[in-house]
C-alpha cells in the first residue's frame, strides 16, 4: 500500500542491559535513536515481554523489533531478520516464564480488534550469555554493535523512503 502521509513506525528494542548480552537489542536501539531523527519514528525500549508489549504496539503501521536470540546455530554476534510468521506459530501453553510469545501477542491483538502494525520486521542478534548480571555485552557480541546499527539504520532509511512515495 502506498502511503500519502508519513508512516508511524515503532522501533522497539527488547532486552535487559543489566544481564550481559541480553541488552544488545537496547544498545542497538540507543545508537539508532542518536543517528535517526525522523518525526515518523518512535523509539521505545522495554525489558518486559509478552502482554506488556500489547500496550505498546497498537496504532503503529510498522513495527521494527530488535531483540536477542540464543539458538547456538551461529556464532555470537550473528544477526537474523525475521517476519512474525518466521517465528513459531502461536504458543503451545506457556509453561514457564509468565509470558507469551511475540506471535501470540500479534494474534491476540488482531483477535481483539486492535490496530496492529501491518508490517513487522524483527532483528535478532545471536548471543552467548544472558544469565550473568553484568552491564554490557560479552566482547564478541559487543564488537558487532556498530555493524548491526549501520545495517538496521540503512534498512530503516530505505523503509522510510519506500513508504513516503
Amino acid at each position, binding site marked *: 500500500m502506498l502511503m500519502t502521509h508519513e508512516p508511524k513506525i515503532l522501533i522497539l528494542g527488547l532486552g535487559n542491559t543489566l544481564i550481559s548480552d541480553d541488552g544488545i537489542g537496547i544498545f542497538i536501539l540507543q545508537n539508532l535513536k542518536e543517528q535517526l531523527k525522523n518525526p515518523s519514528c518512535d523509539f521505545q525500549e522495554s525489558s518486559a515481554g509478552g502482554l506488556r508489549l500489547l500496550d505498546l504496539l497498537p496504532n503503529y503501521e510498522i513495527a521494527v523489533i530488535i531483540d536477542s536470540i540464543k539458538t547456538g546455530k551461529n556464532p555470537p554476534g550473528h544477526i537474523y531478520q525475521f517476519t512474525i510468521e518466521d517465528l513459531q506459530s*502461536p504458543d*503451545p*501453553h506457556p*509453561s514457564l516464564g509468565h*509470558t*507469551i510469545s511475540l506471535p501470540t501477542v500479534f494474534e491476540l491483538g488482531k483477535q481483539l480488534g486492535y490496530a496492529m502494525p501491518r508490517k513487522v520486521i524483527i532483528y535478532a542478534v545471536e548471543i552467548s550469555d*544472558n544469565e550473568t548480571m553484568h552491564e554490557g555485552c560479552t566482547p564478541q557480541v559487543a564488537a558487532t554493535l556498530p555493524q548491526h546499527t549501520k545495517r538496521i539504520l540503512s534498512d530503516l532509511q530505505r523503509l522510510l523512503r519506500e513508504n513516503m512515495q
Partner: protein
Amino acid sequence: MKTITIDPITRLEGHGKIQIFLNDDGEVANSYFQIPELRGFEKFCEGRPVEELAHITPRICGVCPEAHHIASSKTLDAVFHVDPPPTAKKLRELLYSAFYVSDHTTHFYILAGPDFVVGPQAPVAERNILGLIAKVGVEIGKRVIQARKEANRVIEILAARQCHPICGLPGGVSKGLNKEEQEEIIKIGKRSVEFGQFSLKIFDDIVLKNKEYVDLILSDSFTHKTYYMGLVDDQNKVNFYDGKLRVVDPDGKEFAKFAAADYLQHLSEHVEPWSYLKFPFLKKVGWKGFVDGKDSGVYRVAPLARLNASDGMATPQAQEAFEKMYDTLGGKPVHATLATHWARLIELLYAAERILELIHDPEITSDEIRTIPTATPDEGIGVVEAPRGTLFHHYVTDEKGFVKRANLIVGTVNNYAAINMSIKKAAQGLIKKGTQVSEGLLNMIEMAFRAYDPCIGCATHSLPGQMPLEVNIHNSRGELIQVIKR
C-alpha cells in the same frame, strides 16, 4: 536402584527442566524440577550506592518489577532508619495494589485459565489465551486486556513510568498525586472492583459448577499438608505491603509471627547437589526432606498460603469471597494446591477494593510524601508479599551507604521445595507402569506447579520470549527414555 547424579542447571541455557526417574516397575521413583539461576547478583551490587538497588532489582526481571521496587524502597527506609510519611506509604500501597490487579489478571487468564476454560487435556495448540478467547468470546477477552491496561495506567501515574517504576526513595516517594489523577484512579478503581467480581463469577461458572474440576482440585495428587506463611496486618488480615509474617501449621494453628527483620531466626536454607537454588525451610521445625506434614519444615507462600495464614481479608467483598471459599472447601486451612487459583481471584478483588479505599483516603493527595533521611546507613531488611509469595530484600552498607552485601529471597524460591513435591506427587499419580507420557498427561503434571505461578523470568528475555520447558524421563538405570520439549 542405581544412584544417579544430577547436575545443577547451568548447562541448560535458560531451560526449565523436569527430570523424572522411574523405578524397576516403571513407576515414578523421584522427580526434580530444575530452574536456572541468575548469576552474579551479589557481585553486581557490591560497591554501588545503596539507593541504586531500588532501580537495579526491578530490572532483574520483566515480570514483577513493581514487587522488587516496593520491597527495595522499604529496605532502603530500614537501611537509612527513616519512616516515610503516611501519604508516601499509602501511595506505595496504591501502586502495589494496582500491580496486583494487573499481575493476578495476567496469571489467571493467560496462564491458568486455559487449563480450566479450554480444558486440562485439550490439544496444546488450543490450550492458550487464544483458545480461551475462542471459547469465552472476544468481548470478555477485551475486558481482560482492558482491566490490565487500566491497572497499568495507575502504575504509570504513580511510578513515573510504566515498566520499572522509579518513584520509591528512602523515606518516601518522589511523586505525589493531584486531584485530576485522583479522579482518574477512582474511575479505574471502580471498574477494577467490578472486574474482580466478574472474574470470581467466571471461576464459579466454569470451574466450581464442573464436578470434574472440583474433584481434580480436591484430589490427593494435588494436595500437600504443609505450613503456610504470609504478611498480615494487626488484625491478622492479609496485607501485601506491610505487617508481620505469620506462619500457621498444617492444622491452621499459628506457629510463628515475626517482623521481617527477624527472618533469619525463623527461616533457613537447605542445599541440594542438583540445584544452585536453595530450599528455604522453617528453622524451628527443621529440614526433613521433600515431605509434607507437621514435622517437616517445608512451608508454602503465595495466594492460598496467604489466605491460610490469615484470619481474613481487610475489605468487605473480598472477605465474603474468602468465607465462601473456605465454606465450600471444608474450612481452613485448604491444602489443595489448585485452590490457589481461587485464592488468587479473591486477592484480585481485595487489591481492587484496596485501590478504592486508598484513593478515597483524605491524605492521598497530600504533598507530604518524603521524610529526608539523616541517620547513617548500615543494614536493612524489607519485605512485601509479591504475587508469587513473600519477597525479602536484605542490604548491608558501609557508613557512606555503599553496598557491602545484598541478598534477596524471592517468592518462587520460598515455594521451591513445595513445587518439587507437587510435581513428584502429580507424576506419581499419573505415570504408571507402561505409560507413554502424552502432552495431556504432561500438562496435568505441569498444572501442579503452574498453580504456584513460578516466576523464573530473569533470563527469559531473548526470543522467542518464553522459557522453554524440557521433561526428561529416565528408566531405573538412569537411561533417558523419553524427552518432551515445549
